[in-house]
């Protein structure tokens, strides 16, 4: 245990209380503290995860057996759309912003985020967006039922729920852009002296690139939905062929945002895993420099592959070929990362606490998702698989078993630092194994369904798909209910438990472990001395 040696740095927080500012609810509403804001992001994200999860269970219940049983096709589509929008923008993205808020200042030795007040606004913009999305279920015509891609002409014909989704997207975009400006500025301008960019923790690197992706792509989405809005209400013809426009134009703009978006979700997940695996292998991360370049390369290439979602829209053959090869190119930096993680474990002194289990689950399942992504990247194959359950399986492997598992790895890894208590290891492991097993029961059969030709986005299906759908639905329910365990684990750790040391994981490295657990309300009001032993590079 190096813990005792390192706890020394914690000396400079005279002020551990938060008694000066408002208290009670007003404390949370007005806070400018990155830890408070990080906490709110994480709770919000979990609440949205439950809402989006409930919607997915409605979808899966309907798909338990062929025929229509519980919901109307219209309502099914609304559930599908809201599930996706809420999960992507309400659950996964805010979860990683929560991690960024909590951890980046502590990792780089900053007193707070660069713009603490704007940081609060970034968070408080989320509830209005969530209100708009959920309230849209109750307006005439119901919520948007287009799928999260909001394609016209359907999105032009929808009722006012669509307008609410559009404004929700605008507000979420503002929140993301302000949050990203904050993160970039913090990372670039507030590192403690001596921490050069190439010594910075990898999580900060992934967020630096992610924030860039957000600033570059969210305005594009805002533009796309603005054109939808004017087409709907002001008689413009962007997506209307009779007026000289083209519905496919929307797809181009949407996916120019949409593909970077998948890396906005994936990169911070990579960052978390790049902390957890070295810590539980008790080794330095293998190939730090190549990791940094891989992150940058993924970020850059992600802007040039968007039409792999559009192979069947009639884009020219040369276009199909270009997008096919460009997409496959991303497998190279992604492969570099996967191999580096594996090599980090090679001859390490491994132990398998819950964070490590989730990181390994991530590694295996994300790789499967990445490989099915490569399958889909091949135009000739994708023409068969486009809009089938194979695609659904693919992106759930990357987004659930990838991003969500990584978020859990981070949660268990940093929970002792946040609450000051160790979580219940047995429950954590139970949570992991239930998630791992049920996830695969829920999603692996969807590959077969897709290969056999079952289309996505339908509430009913032909008899021959019945068995795999039934398995998938039972798996989904198992997965969904297992997630409630997280609540138990977190509440237990908040209430009490074994006191956590400053560095509860003996292999963990980084400035965040030099301060006591729980971390004092204000850390590093003055930049801490930078200890090369804590460096990641």
């Amino acid at each position, binding site marked *: 245990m190096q813990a005792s040696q390192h706890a020394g740095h914690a000396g400079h927080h005279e002020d551990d209380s938060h008694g*000066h*500012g*408002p208290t009670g609810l*007003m*404390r949370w*509403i*007005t806070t*400018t503290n990155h830890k408070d804001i990080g906490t709110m992001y994480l709770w919000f994200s979990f609440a949205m995860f439950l809402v989006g999860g409930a919607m997915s269970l409605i979808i899966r219940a309907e798909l338990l057996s062929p025929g229509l049983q519980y919901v109307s096709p219209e309502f099914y589509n609304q559930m599908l759309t809201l599930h996706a929008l809420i999960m992507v923008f309400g659950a996964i993205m805010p979860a990683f912003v929560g991690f960024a808020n909590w951890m980046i200042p502590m990792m780089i030795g*900053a007193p*707070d985020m*660069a*713009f603490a*007040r*704007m940081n*609060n*606004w970034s968070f*408080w*913009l989320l*509830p*209005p967006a969530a*209100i*708009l999305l959920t309230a849209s279920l109750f307006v005439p015509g119901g919520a948007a039922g287009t799928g999260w891609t909001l394609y016209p002409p359907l999105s032009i014909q929808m009722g*006012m729920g669509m307008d*609410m989704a559009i*404004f929700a997207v605008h*507000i979420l975009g*503002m929140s993301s852009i302000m949050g*990203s*400006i904050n993160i970039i*500025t913090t990372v*670039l*301008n*507030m590192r403690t002296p001596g921490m050069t960019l190439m010594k910075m923790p990898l999580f900060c690197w992934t967020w630096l690139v992610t924030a860039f992706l957000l*600033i*570059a*792509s*969210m*305005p*594009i989405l805002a533009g*796309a939905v603005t*054109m939808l*809005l*004017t*087409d*709907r*209400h*002001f*008689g*413009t*013809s*962007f997506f209307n*062929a*009779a*007026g*000289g*426009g*083209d519905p496919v*134009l929307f797809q*181009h703009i949407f996916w120019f945002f949409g593909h970077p978006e998948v890396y906005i979700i994936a990169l911070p997940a990579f960052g978390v895993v790049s902390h957890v695996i070295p810590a539980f292998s008790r080794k330095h991360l293998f190939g730090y420099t190549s990791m940094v370049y891989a992150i940058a390369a993924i970020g850059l290439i992600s802007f040039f592959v968007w039409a792999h979602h559009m192979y069947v829209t009639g884009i020219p053959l040369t276009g199909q070929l270009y997008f096919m090869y460009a997409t496959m190119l991303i497998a190279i930096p992604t492969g570099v990362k996967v191999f580096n993680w594996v090599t980090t474990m090679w001859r390490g002194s491994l132990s398998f606490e819950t964070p490590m289990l989730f990181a390994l689950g991530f590694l295996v399942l994300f790789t499967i998702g990445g490989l099915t992504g490569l399958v889909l990247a091949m135009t000739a194959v994708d023409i068969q698989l486009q809009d089938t359950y194979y695609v659904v399986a693919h992106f759930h492997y990357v987004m659930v078993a990838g991003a969500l598992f990584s978020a859990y790895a981070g949660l268990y890894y940093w929970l002792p630092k946040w609450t000051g208590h160790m979580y219940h290891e047995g429950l954590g492991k139970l949570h992991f194994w239930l998630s791992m097993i049920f996830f695969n029961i829920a999603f692996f059969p969807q590959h077969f369904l897709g290969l056999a030709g079952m289309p996505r986005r339908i509430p009913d299906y032909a008899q021959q798909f019945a068995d795999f759908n039934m398995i998938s639905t039972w798996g989904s329910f198992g997965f969904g209910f297992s997630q409630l365990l997280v609540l138990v684990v977190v509440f237990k750790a908040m209430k009490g438990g074994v006191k956590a040391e400053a560095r509860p994981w003996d292999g963990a490295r980084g400035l965040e472990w030099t301060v006591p657990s729980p971390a004092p309300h204000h850390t590093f009001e*003055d930049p801490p001395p930078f200890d090369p032993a804590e460096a990641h590079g």
Partner: protein
Amino acid sequence: MSHPASANRYFVPDPSHWPLVGSLALLLLASGAVLTMNSIANGGFVLMGGFAVLAVMLFGWFARVIGESESGSYNVQVDRSFRWAMAWFIFSEVMFFAAFFGALFYVRVLSVPDLASADQAGLWEGFKGQWPTAGPAAKDVFTPMHAWGIPAINTLLLLSSGVTVTWAHWGLIANKRQQLITGLALTILLGLVFISLQAYEYAEAYSHLGLKMTTGVYGSTFYMLTGFHGFHVTLGATMLIVILVRTLKGHFTAERHFAFEAVAWYWHFVDVVWLGLFVVVYWL
């Protein structure tokens, strides 16, 4: 907790309720807009309420920031943060316009020619696909906007305003107060004339040229691009007015005046977007 101004402590602001007020404003604006667009009664009031709350929030929040700045809370490191932030904010605006420029490029190079191609011949008989077009199903005739009238004058106005704002900046750096004030006032004046001419152009387009938002994809791209640009000029001019008022109040020193520079950057950005507009929307 806010710290006393110190050379090396980074400023962290006190808890603030302005963000929540801002969120309320946006919720009202969004709901009001949804109601109004779907012709539901009283939507307009909600919308107006949203604007009012937004205005209160902007006043309150910026007053706070200006107060902090004037009381010397912002050290060099904070100043650097503001520079990064403004630069990235402008980049996000660039990307917002990129979506509309991209749409214009797409319809001109791809969708309109495609609608006139042999593939679609049976569908849209006689459609030539010449730009500008209101699309194959258009019935009304319209006259496109000519580049060398008001738009050319507007180009000159904005380019000169770029010069005057730089001249004002030189005045600020050289402690020449009169030059600073004159330069700012001239810039604002040029901006306001630009907006007025733009408004006149729109009125002409609607009343005499038959060029409306509903005029197919030409009208769509024309109004979307020039409209959002005009909105940004209005925003920029408003910010310049704030800067002028602050100057008159004696804010800003030759060394420390990032608010001025931020607005100047923004003004140049608006300028550059206009050049792009002039070339691809009006001229070519």
